[in-house]
């Protein structure tokens, strides 16, 4: 995969801003606070134009593609970003760019691009396997609008968002509908928590939430939403790949410098062979990251989802293997919050649990073979 100079520069400038504003100690100081991330850094990402990456050119944004999202996502994973970049600037922005009407675009896309507005897609529901299965949240027509009832599960950065894009079924209608719900809507309750990768997530309870007719985004949105979710998953894969590669590099560095029994532990052949296997997993993950990006916008849903599932499986397995080995080869130090390696480990654990598990995607992939 050959990148253009522009694409390389995009990744480098992303890395630069994350290396300063998102530096590890600063990040850690912020992550124990309420939002879990630095507003300053968020503004810097906006200033660099990264929050406009997925806003179409026609709407005043950059209108980038899957490769750009991959390169940026990789940098986000490397930097262990806790800000809602993926949730808001990728997933929610792509959703609106794909499905919103003109008025809605004008209302929300510029605010998303500037960083003023944080939006999240509230789609996944507990127990039915994330994005892999349909939603059970219901929308009922009311006078002048809709009533929403349901429970959305572990929605990343829902508590940091002003706007939730809620998917729902309409009784008697096929497919899915989508509604914009302000976070202060009556009947909306969030159960917030910190995630294992130090971000924020919430279960979103909707009990008779009333929205107007203009809150509905698009018509039957199943197909469009599936495209967005696959593009979002490709970006998430890149984030994981960034963390995998960083965990490997941290381990290599550590084993070069850390001495035991009078020599660097990297001299021990048993550890060398395990690092070699970590590298193989990493390079295979990189390949699937590229493949996912190059198919993320395929219009044939079957072919696209087959590649995306394969990527989720392989990168999820690399995440577990490289993450666990990285901690193990760091010994006790790998268990501490002090070193980055334990943070990569946690980010990779989160990756496994997001967007459908390895087993779920393996099953979906296997179903294409029979």
């Amino acid at each position, binding site marked *: 995969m050959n990148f253009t100079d522009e694409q390389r520069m995009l990744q480098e400038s992303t890395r630069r801003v994350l290396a300063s504003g998102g530096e590890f100690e600063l990040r850690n100081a912020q*992550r*124990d*606070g*309420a939002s*879990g991330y630095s507003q300053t850094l968020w503004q810097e990402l906006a200033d660099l134009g990264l929050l406009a990456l997925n806003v179409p050119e026609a709407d005043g944004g950059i209108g980038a593609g899957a490769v750009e999202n991959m390169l940026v996502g990789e940098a986000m994973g490397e930097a262990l970003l806790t800000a809602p970049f993926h949730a808001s600037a990728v997933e929610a922005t792509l959703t609106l760019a794909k499905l919103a009407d003109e008025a809605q675009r004008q209302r929300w896309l510029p605010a998303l691009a500037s960083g003023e507005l944080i939006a999240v897609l509230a789609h*996944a*529901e*507990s*127990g*039915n*396997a*994330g994005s892999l*299965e349909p939603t*059970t949240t219901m929308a009922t027509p009311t006078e002048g609008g809709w009533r929403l009832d349901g429970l959305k*599960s*572990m929605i990343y950065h829902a508590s940091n968002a002003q706007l939730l894009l809620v998917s729902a079924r309409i009784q008697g209608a096929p497919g899915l509908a989508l509604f914009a719900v302000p976070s202060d809507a009556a009947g909306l309750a969030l*159960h*917030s*928590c*910190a*995630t*294992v*990768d*130090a971000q924020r*997530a919430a*279960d979103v309870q909707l009990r008779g939430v009333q929205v107007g007719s203009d809150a509905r985004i698009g018509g039957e949105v199943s197909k469009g939403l599936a495209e967005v979710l696959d593009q979002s998953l490709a970006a998430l894969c890149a984030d994981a790949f960034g963390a995998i590669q960083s965990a490997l590099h941290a381990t290599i560095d550590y084993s070069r410098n*850390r*001495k*035991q*029994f009078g020599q660097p532990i990297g001299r*021990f052949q*048993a*550890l060398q062979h395990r690092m070699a296997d970590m590298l193989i997993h990493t390079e295979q993950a990189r390949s699937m990251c590229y493949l996912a990006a190059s198919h993320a916008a395929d219009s044939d849903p079957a072919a696209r989802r087959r590649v995306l599932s394969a990527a989720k499986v392989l990168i999820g397995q690399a995440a*577990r293997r490289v993450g*666990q080995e990285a*901690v*193990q080869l760091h*010994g*006790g130090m*790998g*268990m*501490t*919050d*002090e070193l980055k390696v*334990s*943070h990569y*480990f*946690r980010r990779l*654990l*989160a990756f496994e*649990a*997001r967007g459908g*598990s390895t*087993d779920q995607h*393996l*099953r979906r992939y296997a179903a294409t073979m029979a």
Partner: protein
Amino acid sequence: MNLTQSEQAFLTDIRQFLADKLPADIRQRVAARDDSQLKEDIVAWQGILHAQGWGAPAWPAEFGGTGWSKVQQYLFDTECALADAPLQLAFGLKMVGPVIMRFGTPEQQQRFLPRILSGEDWWCQGYSEPGSGSDLASLKTQAVREGDEYVVSGQKVWNTLGQHADWIFCLVRTDSSGKPQRGISFLLIDMRSPGITVRPTRLLDGGHEVNEVWFDEVRVPAENLIGEENHGWTYAKFLLGHERTNIAGIGANQRELQRLKEFARAQRNDGGRLIDDPVFAAKIAQVEIELMALEITNLRVIEADERKQAPGPEASILKIKGTEIMQRLSELQVEALGPAALLSNGESRIAGLQPDPSLQPANTTDFYLNQRKVSIYGGSNEIQRNIIAQMILQI
């Protein structure tokens, strides 16, 4: 496994005792992996066991132990784990206690052992130092003899639960002239001594389990030296090779297997159960079978111990396989939770968030994170493989 009649009767007694005497609130906290009252629970349970005469299952009767056979100890450990009893604190009972029994003076034995039994003294360990994890011989904490005192300065790391401790047993350097293993001494130090600072080490699960302990010219009476000066390495090695009946953690593993099955049998929102997924069911079956085999392997080692057969690489096998199974079980528990596993209670607590406890049972994610330690501590699994290789290859 075939028990003798008397072993069967013993098992019945233990089950009855656990049913009668283990307080329900403690049992519930252990079941929920709630360590908010960890010290109180451990101390209370030690007191109950002590009252029964079971304070030290592995000690000989002459020191107030039970005098149980190794099979009995194994059965006791296993049943306690299955009943959600708190772990007995190993630092006194399984580590410094046996060292004092073997190498301590009668005065030291009378002073320290009864208070370990009763749970009055909470012990912790001062072995590892920055840069010397598995390579203990390189330790640097200094103890200088001045009159009838040692003056101790240095830093220990990976001190487990020392924030609750009354006493710490330490390896210290009393001579730097010879080979690194020479010149190490074994000292007992009162944690209330001036000059000791305990600082928590934040771990990846957000928990406070280990500490750094700093010694700044801490004065320790020379009577707290175990055995001879500069011979501490011998005592430390004795301690490390001591425990084999529960090294595989059969009971704890069986308990986690139960929990995994509970998770997998739970009805999900979409009506399905994970245990009905053939791929996930095969994963559970696989680990259950490995645990079944390990239980037999463990009993074979115990039998060989009772017959005093020469020790081989068995302890290392039990350590490696027992910890691999434990890590696998915690991993499958996380898988079974699905997206709910994204929640970290430790991380949430530090951020001042109080998530709905129903979001994730039994702090499973933090447990998984925490269990990464079991293949690292107690002689990492890499060290154990080195030991096995030396024993089988003998080259």
